């Protein structure tokens, strides 16, 4: 780049010599890549070393990105890197909104993971409250649980098991790798519970059931 050579002597006013234009282009590229908002030339200049010429660097950068998967675009008086408009069809998956799973669903999912294959009646017995249809449907829709084999007991109830998607999502190789209660406790993952002596009153259990109830009715 011959420009760099001619540029350098010109910046006589500045105390320190500005970096070569190639460097300046790198800087603009990095800033536009990492910032959450489009940047004006003034903002770029404010971030770059003294004596830099972001306007010129932007010209080079724009040329560099011509015809690429990403292009340098002007938004008002600011600049941003954006994916090329013709590739928008590739972005489908980016527009996914994630919400936190409800407590009822988390608990149901946990029971399936730890006890699979498990029937709906067993889930209810473990949770101590009935499981709403919506909860199971939601977990099936998320592809985190699926139907397992029917249990060979009267009524031949269906069972639920967790899926490969579930393992992938939670970073598990195997549902058996889930830590047991003792391990949860020693890892400090259990909320501290009152001493056994106090538990006989069983008051907070009542409370908890209440919460479950509300949740359950919220869902349906």
């Amino acid at each position, binding site marked *: 780049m011959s420009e760099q050579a001619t540029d350098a002597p010109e910046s006589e006013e500045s105390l320190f010599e500005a970096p070569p234009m190639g460097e300046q282009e790198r800087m603009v590229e*990095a800033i536009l*890549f*990492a*910032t*959450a*908002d489009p940047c004006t030339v003034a903002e770029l200049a404010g971030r770059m070393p003294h004596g830099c010429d972001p306007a010129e660097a932007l010209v080079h950068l724009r040329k560099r990105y011509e015809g690429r998967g990403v292009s340098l675009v002007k938004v008002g008086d600011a600049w*941003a*890197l*954006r*994916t090329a408009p013709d590739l*928008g069809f590739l*972005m*489908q998956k*980016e*527009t*996914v*909104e*994630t*919400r*936190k*799973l409800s*407590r009822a*669903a*988390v*608990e149901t*999912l*946990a*029971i399936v*993971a*730890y006890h699979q294959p498990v029937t709906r009646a067993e889930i209810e017995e*473990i*949770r*101590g409250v009935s499981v709403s249809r919506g909860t199971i449907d*939601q977990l099936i829709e*998320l592809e985190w649980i699926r139907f397992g084999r029917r249990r060979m007991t009267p009524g031949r109830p269906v069972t639920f098991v967790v899926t490969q998607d579930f393992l992938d*999502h*939670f*970073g*598990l190789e195997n549902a058996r790798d*889930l*830590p047991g*209660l003792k391990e*949860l*406790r020693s890892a400090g*993952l*259990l*909320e501290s*519970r009152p001493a*056994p*002596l106090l*538990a*006989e009153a069983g008051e907070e*259990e009542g409370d*908890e059931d209440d919460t479950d109830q509300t949740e359950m009715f919220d869902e349906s």
Partner: protein
Amino acid sequence: MSDATIFSTDVNERLAAEALIVDVDGFEGPLDLLLTLSRTQKVDLRQISVLALAEQYLAFIHKARDLRLELAADYLVMAAWLAFLKSRLLLPPDPSEEGPSGEELAAHLAFQLERLAAMRDAAAKLMARDQLGRDFFARGITEDVTRTRRVTYTATLLDLMQGYARIRTKDEFRPFVMDREKVFTMEEALGRMRGLIGFAGEWTDILSYLPEGWELDPVKRRSATASTFAASLELAKEGKIEIRQGDIFAPIQIRNKER
């Protein structure tokens, strides 16, 4: 005293040693302390003198006690073990003795120290690396072209485990709800009486053998009385004591038989 050799008159060294003492809480356990002490030897950890280190550690513990610092049990356990190691290193090996030699034990300790030091070094190197969000950065504008939005639900492994723990701990404590705190077992009563019986030369009411405080709560008193009575019968059967009751519902008395 070996103190004199280790904590030499060198003022700096003495100050360093005292700094260690004052900082006893700053150590993460005996191994950490040993590693710090080993630094004063200023040699490669592979060439470290475990004997000298053991002496330093024991002197340290000694000083800490002189200063009446509370020492956690594991520091004392390590002190006992090092004292044992020291004797093994100093005494000629006893051919009849089983197990590893002093040298083997010392080598393992040196290995542990070297490994801990290596891990600390590795941790420092790791944290000194360029880090995401500090030295290099991810894309700032993630694509948000308005388009069909799909809602998906998410949960973390932690949510899952805590959810499970929440349900299971409800059940888990149920078996323990039966209040064991108010039960004085016969084994406990026997243990207590065996300790006390030697002093009972005279006839004494067995109720005086109830553990302290238990006579106040009716539930506890009942349990302790029953077990103390059962234990008395057991001791009488063993021939340790004599037992008598003056009348129906009169106090039951016992005394030591082996005088």
